[in-house]
Structures are given as structure tokens and as C-alpha cells.
């Protein structure tokens, strides 16, 4: 469980996150909102790239904000970025192994763990092929494999379906859904694809202009009047 209380982030006059308190209970949780709502900033706070002005984040009973950024991977934090970060010059295997070896996982199980993660996301390409030669869908799957290798406790997926055609997000949704049960990690999914969010997430939180406007079971949240207004605007305008 991840508890966020009174989180505020300020960048010189702008407040991308404004006094947000929210609980991610477990399983796969959605985090949605229009562009500029503060979703990626929130991920950056969790990753340690952005220091909040005030607030606390307790992840599985530990104070996350006290940890140095690069130590959070060892603790069990994994994330993907909006832009692709799989390293093109490295093979699929090396891409995933790289996360494994810096996250404090045991060396003896590296080969098996890495191959299991590649298999888990359903990548059929040869693990020794270079990531630069893969298609967009496969490169996304490499990123998800990087996020689930080792023993992650929290997986942050930042628009994993961005740039993928609709027919290819189905498999991705299935993989994301299986993460909590098979990998044992809490997943927070940021995406604009509402079909993907409804398919994967039991609960969803909605940000708009840095404020939390709704959170709860996904179906309820998506019917919420404020959420619809935030996404579609109001008629008076």
C-alpha cells in the first residue's frame, strides 16, 4: 500500500501538484488526468527526481522520500518513461539484466530471472537480438520486462501504450493485469487510453491542474461528473 499525504510540488510559481492526499491500496491502480495535470511530476517525486515542497509518501511502511534516487531501484521501485528508454545498442537480455544487476538481486539467479521476465511479457524475439532492431510493440515489452525483473514492489508505468496501435494494446493490457499477482508488485498506470485503464485498474485516481479530483473504484471514477468535466470541458465554455 502506498499512502501519499498532503503532497505539494512547486516549481518557481507553478504548482504542478497541489496538496494531494491519496492511497494506492494495491493491485493495479490507474492515475489519469488531462495533459499537465501533474501525473508525470508525481512519478518523478516517487522516483526521487523531484523533491516535494511538503508532504509524505509511505510505501509499504517505509518513508520513500528519505531514500536517495538511485537506491529506490534496490528497494524495489521500477518505472518506465513516456519516451522509450530501452537501450538500442544492447540486446534484450542485457537490457533486462542491467536492471537486475543494479537492483541488488542475486547474481546466481540472474540468467533465469531475466529470461523469466522476458517470457512473462510474452516477447518471442531472440533474447540476444539488439533492441534497436525490434518493432515499437516489442520495444515497449522490453521496457515492461525491465520493470518486472528482480523483485519489484512498486511498478510505475508512464503511458506504456503511447504510440501503439489499438490492436496491439490488448496484449499489453493483459501483461499489466498479471503483474500484481505474478510479480507481487503494486502497479500505478498512467495512460490516456481509457480502455486500457478500465481493463487493467481496479482503482483509479484523477488529477486535474495538480489537484486530486476523484479516486476510488475505476468504473465509479470514470462516471464521476467532475472527471467527465475535466476531460471534456463544460458546455458553458
Amino acid at each position, binding site marked *: 500500500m502506498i499512502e501519499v499525504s498532503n503532497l505539494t510540488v512547486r516549481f518557481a510559481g507553478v504548482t504542478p501538484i497541489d496538496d494531494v492526499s491519496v492511497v494506492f491500496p494495491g493491485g493495479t491502480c490507474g492515475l489519469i488526468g488531462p495533459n499537465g495535470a501533474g501525473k508525470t511530476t508525481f512519478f518523478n517525486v516517487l522516483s526521487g527526481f523531484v523533491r516535494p515542497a511538503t508532504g509524505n509518501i509511505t510505501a509499504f511502511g517505509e518513508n520513500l522520500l528519505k531514500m536517495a*534516487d*538511485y537506491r529506490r531501484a534496490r528497494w524495489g521501485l521500477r518505472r518506465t518513461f513516456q519516451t522509450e528508454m530501452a537501450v538500442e545498442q544492447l540486446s534484450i537480455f542485457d537490457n533486462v539484466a542491467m536492471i537486475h544487476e543494479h537492483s541488488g538481486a542475486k547474481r546466481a539467479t540472474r540468467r533465469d530471472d531475466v529470461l523469466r521476465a522476458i517470457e512473462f511479457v510474452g516477447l518471442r524475439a531472440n533474447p540476444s537480438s539488439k533492441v534497436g532492431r525490434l518493432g515499437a510493440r516489442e520495444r515497449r515489452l522490453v521496457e515492461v520486462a525491465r520493470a518486472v525483473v528482480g523483485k519489484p514492489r512498486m511498478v510505475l508505468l508512464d503511458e506504456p501504450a503511447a504510440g501503439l496501435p489499438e490492436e496491439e494494446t490488448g496484449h499489453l493490457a493483459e501483461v499489466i493485469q498479471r503483474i500484481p499477482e505474478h510479480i507481487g508488485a503494486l502497479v500505478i498506470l498512467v495512460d490516456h487510453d481509457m480502455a486500457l485503464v478500465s481493463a487493467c485498474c481496479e482503482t483509479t485516481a484523477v488529477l486535474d491542474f495538480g489537484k486530486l479530483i476523484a479516486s476510488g473504484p475505476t468504473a465509479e471514477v470514470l462516471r464521476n461528473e467532475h472527471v467527465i468535466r475535466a476531460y471534456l470541458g463544460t458546455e458553458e465554455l
Partner: protein
Amino acid sequence: MSPIDAYLQRGVAVRAAVAVALLVVAIFVLPAMSGSDWITTYTSVAIYSVVALGFGILYGRVGLISLGQVALLTIGCWIGTRLAYATSLPFPFLLLLAGAITCAIGVLVGLPALRLSGLYLALITLMFAGATTVVLSVTDFPSGNHGFTGHATTGALTTSTPPVRRPSMAVGDTAYYRYTVIVCAILFLIALIHVATKPGRAWATIRESEPAAIAAGVNITLYKLWAFALASFVTGVAGCLLAAQVGVPRAITFQTQDSLTLAATALIGGIFSIWGAIIAGVFNQLLPFLFQAQWGLNPNFLLIIFGAGLLQVLLTAPGGLVDQFPKDMANLGRLLFSGFRKLPRERRPQK
């Protein structure tokens, strides 16, 4: 055997076979068919390949541009020279010490890289190269005589300045060339092992994106400094090899702009591949020798050629010659092959 193991073993076997074949040619074939001036040039090629290797590790692997690599070579050379005058240590120890001290200095130079990258880091390392040149000419490098800081009383660099000693097993030029090739091969092997294992993967991730590397748990401070340490160590060892090759190194032979030429030739050779460094060494040392000693041309023309070559590489072949040449050859082969195949068909009488 799983496909990945099979791939790894096949890849390693092929590369090892190529490397061993190259070494055999370099150690046995080349000296047998070349005169003594050629052999000293080959020694320089081997030494400068290692300097290009250091540049390639920093820029090709981690994305840190350092224009001070020849300055580090100079420092390694200076340390090697002074240690040779001051101590009676066996030559391999001189190599290791020169490597270790240059490594420490290189890490200091690398400290700004933790904050800076791109143009700013390039500028700072170039300033460092300039500063090295200034310090060495002011202190009258190597100023002859015995002891670590020894100054000759009759003015520096007389004919009586004793040359830096070579290893007792490799006093002659040919023997010293072979010795140099073997030491350089070991340095290349050390770099290869780094690139293929944990540090290499961490460097590739840092080069891709620093935030992604941090999110992946990579201690980027440690791995950036590690890259500087490795590049400086191999360059320092190469500097010590150079000291014993030339015997009496002179400050005038080390110019600030050599670092720029080295960066250009390293890019032309190919910075993403370890093999590109060897091509860079050939360009940097063999071509000037050919121009000056063999063809009677002014070697300064090479700067123009390197400039044009660099432009071409940056625009059309970012992987450098080592990446582009095989592709060009394959294309040429395909062209020729399809030409041969088409020819009879076209000549066939139409019915």
C-alpha cells in the same frame, strides 16, 4: 544449449579468432616485412590506438566528450619518464604506476563531468589539455638528469640526457614493438571485458538517458568516474610505453591540438566499436609517417583530410569506418554480383 548461450559462445569465439589472427599478423608478419622506421611507426600506432580507445570508452560508451586524452597520454609519458629516472623499478611496474597515477589525475579531470556534459565538458577538458602543454613547457619537460624532479645543470636535453630505459627483454626496436603490441592487447582486453559486462551495460544506459539510469538503480557518479578511471589508466600506461619508445620525450612533441586530431581520428575510426580505435591509431600515426617520410608531402595537409573525413562520418556514417566499411563492401559485392547476374540475361537474345 539455449539460443542465448549459443549466440554468446559463437560471438565470443568469432571475435577471439579475429583478435588472435590480428595479433599474430602484428607480432610476426609485420616486423618481418618492414624496415626499422616502419616498426617505430607501428609502435606509435599501437600506443595511439589505446589513446583512441580511452576516448571511445568515454564518448562512445558513456557519452562524455573529453578532448584532453592526449594530455593524459603526455602525463603518463612524463610520469613514466620521471619514474624511470628516479627509480630502478622493473618496466612492468613503471607501466602500472604510470597508469595508476594518470588514472587518479584523470578522475580529477572527470569530476566536472558529474555536472557538465556536451560542449562544456569538451571545453573544460580542452582547457586541461592546454594547461598541460603550458605546465610542461614551463617546467622544461623532461629536464633530464636523475631523480623524480631532477634538473640538468647544463640546461635540459643535451645529447648526454640518458634515454628512458626499456624492458631488458625488449631493448631493440622490433622487440620493443612486440612488447608494446602485447601490452596494448592486454589494455584492449581489459576494456572489452568492461564493455561486455556490468559497467558496459550501466554506461550504455547512462548514455541513453541519465534519469532512466538513475531509475534503474545505476549509481551514475560511480560509473562515470569509473569510465574516466579506466580511460585514464589505459592512456597512462600507453604514455609510459611512449616514453620508453622515444627515449627522450620532448614537450614540443605534445601539442594541445593533438587531442583534437585524436578525437577526429577516433570518430572517423568509429567510437562505438573497440576495433574503431585501431583504425584511429593507424590514421593518427601511420598516415603522417606515410605523408612525411614516404611521399614527401607536408603532413599538415592531413588536418584537411581528417576534417573532410570527420564531416563525412558525422553526416553519413555515425558508426565510423569500422561500421561503414563492411557495409560498403557488402553493397559493392551485391552490386558486382547483381551486375554479373544481369549481364548474361540482358545479352540473351529476345524471342
